[in-house]
């Protein structure tokens, strides 16, 4: 009873443990230091592994970044474009490292995050400066080579546009200096190269200014141009027009914005033209407009595009078990839709899906998600638009997921097949012995049928041993020594067999006959 109780307790405990483990079988990784996320327990070893080295690298990296701005601005100023390219590549690499570090250390909310943003803008500004300076050089060279008046004008316009862009770039670059210097000084960084870079930037922009009087100042043109109003926002329509003194009514006037054709107008009977220009996908800041009528070029008019805030919404609807439809609107402050704008849908694990707004500012896309709860967010990045980026509030959706995966069933089938093969392979080893010594069901007086003719002497001895053991009703698990102890009357037989079996001796024919007689119960020993 006692024994039964202990067995029952053991079996119950085993079943309980197996059930507990089975519950975890779907996600067999019970614990790793990296993914431990309980508030009560955090493995200090992993935190140490991740942060001290990174944190140590952060401040020197900021120093390198500031140093790199000085070098890059200097090489641009010296027009050593090859070195400038190398410096820029190095600067980009350092910036990328810095960005990664800021994310890893999760310090984007601090002044280091502000430094990172300024640094990113500085990098873009210096990259633009390098490209603009190069283009400027090309324009200067072209201006000398080109004799054709029309082309010279085009060069002058482009030069003017570049000059304005560089001026704009410089003022933004200089505006960031106080904040960046303040943060840098907070971390005891050397700000001299950075301040020098601002000076170099100013010199490059000034050099572009010097070029203007030489080319930009065109003689008073009969084709006048004006942009009214002089500034606008996304969706506004500006009027680009003027008077063409001496122009024949009906003349086609081409209007260009930033040296790109923006449309055409026809000269009215009163000698004026008017082209409505709708502000669409164009960057914020100053822009240039000019008009041409045949070979006649107008002067350059400027206008400014101002930025505006945007609002983006996101609504989720289930399409089927795995897909979710994301819809929403992208509008600016007064409800005006933003058409043809790219929208990104970000899911909780960082996966992105792209969509585009239609004429009504509405976007719609379907994304396939794995089963479970997901948080989605729509983002508008405003690249190329005079608009500020925006982000929708996070929306949560529960995806039911696909039905049962066939994977475990296929694996189970493979496992069953493999086990079947394994068991089949094992069986033949045991069978010959069973065949050699057929065991009668009831041990007792009936002599077993044993055929040893033709067998090698040692195998024949084994067959006889098995036959005798069966006849005496001794279990198969007993060795010859055990058998000798259990049936002392046949000890001689069993001891002889033990020597044959373990000592490698070979029985003679006479011995075999004697053993056969004893095994079959006819011998003197059995009596």
């Amino acid at each position: 009873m006692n024994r039964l109780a202990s067995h029952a307790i053991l079996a119950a405990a085993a079943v309980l443990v197996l059930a507990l483990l089975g519950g975890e079988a779907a996600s067999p990784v019970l614990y790793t230091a990296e993914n431990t996320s309980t508030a009560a327990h955090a493995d200090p070893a992993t935190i140490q592994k991740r942060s001290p080295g990174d944190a140590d690298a952060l401040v020197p990296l900021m120093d390198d970044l500031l140093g790199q701005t000085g070098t890059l601005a200097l090489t641009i100023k010296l027009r050593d474009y090859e070195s400038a390219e190398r410096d820029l590549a190095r600067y980009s690499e350092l910036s990328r490292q810095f960005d990664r570090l800021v994310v890893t250390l999760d310090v984007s909310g601090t002044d280091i995050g502000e430094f990172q943003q300024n640094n990113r803008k500085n990098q873009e500004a210096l990259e633009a400066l390098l490209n603009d300076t190069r283009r400027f050089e090309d324009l200067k060279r072209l201006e000398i080579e080109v004799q054709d008046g029309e082309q010279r004008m085009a060069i002058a316009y482009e030069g003017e546009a570049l000059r304005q862009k560089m001026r704009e770039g410089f003022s933004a670059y200089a505006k960031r200096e106080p904040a960046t210097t303040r943060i840098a000084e907070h971390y005891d960084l050397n700000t001299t190269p950075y301040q020098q870079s601002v000076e170099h930037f100013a010199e490059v922009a000034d050099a572009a200014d010097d070029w203007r009087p030489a080319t930009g100042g065109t003689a008073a043109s009969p084709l006048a141009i004006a942009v009214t109003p002089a500034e606008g926002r996304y969706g506004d329509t500006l009027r680009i027009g003027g008077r063409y003194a001496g122009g024949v009514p009906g003349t086609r006037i081409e209007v260009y914005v930033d040296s790109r054709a923006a449309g055409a107008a026809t000269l009215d009977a009163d000698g004026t033209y008017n082209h409505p220009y709708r502000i669409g996908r164009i960057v914020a800041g100053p822009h240039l407009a000019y008009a041409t009528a045949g070979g006649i070029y107008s002067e350059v008019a400027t206008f400014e595009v101002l930025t505006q805030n945007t609002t983006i919404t996101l609504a989720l609807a289930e399409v089927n078990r795995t897909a979710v439809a994301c819809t929403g609107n992208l509008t600016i402050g007064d409800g005006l839709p933003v058409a043809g704008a790219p929208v990104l849908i970000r899911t909780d694990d960082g996966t992105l899906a792209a969509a585009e707004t239609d004429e009504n500012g509405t976007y719609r896309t379907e994304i396939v998600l794995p089963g479970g709860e997901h948080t989605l967010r729509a983002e508008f990045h405003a690249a190329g638009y005079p608009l500020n980026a925006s982000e929708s509030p996070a929306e949560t959706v529960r995806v039911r997921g696909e039905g049962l995966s066939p994977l475990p069933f296929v694996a189970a089938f493979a496992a069953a097949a493999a086990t079947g093969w394994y068991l089949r392979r094992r069986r033949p080893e045991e069978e010959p012995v069973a065949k050699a010594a057929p065991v009668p069901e009831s041990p007792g007086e009936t002599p077993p049928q044993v055929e040893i003719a033709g067998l090698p002497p040692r195998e024949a001895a084994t067959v006889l041993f098995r036959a005798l053991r069966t006849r005496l009703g001794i279990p198969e698990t007993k060795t010859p020594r055990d058998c000798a102890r259990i049936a002392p009357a046949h000890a001689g037989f069993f001891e002889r067999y033990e020597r044959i079996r373990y000592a490698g001796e070979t029985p003679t024919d006479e011995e075999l006959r004697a053993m056969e007689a004893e095994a079959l119960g006819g011998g003197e020993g059995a009596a």
Partner: protein
Amino acid sequence: MIRMAGAKKYSAAAVLAAWLIIVAFFMVLNRTLDLEVFFVLALIGLLVVAVLIDGAFSRPRYMRYIGYLIAAGVALFAYIVAEKILEILAA
């Protein structure tokens, strides 16, 4: 002899338990506790113990039970391997 054979199965159980504790200890020391790895190492331990206690000329009843246990373990192991292969193929 019979007493020794009886002691053998208890020693085997003790050795196997010790092996499982050692495996768990080192897995925790390595800051990873993976059931699959634990199971495979446990099965290896069971196979070694089974080979060591298996007699040449007799087959005690407990060896037959261990055989069933090993067959179940091999089936589970085959399942894990098959699943891993399918995972790799699907990736």
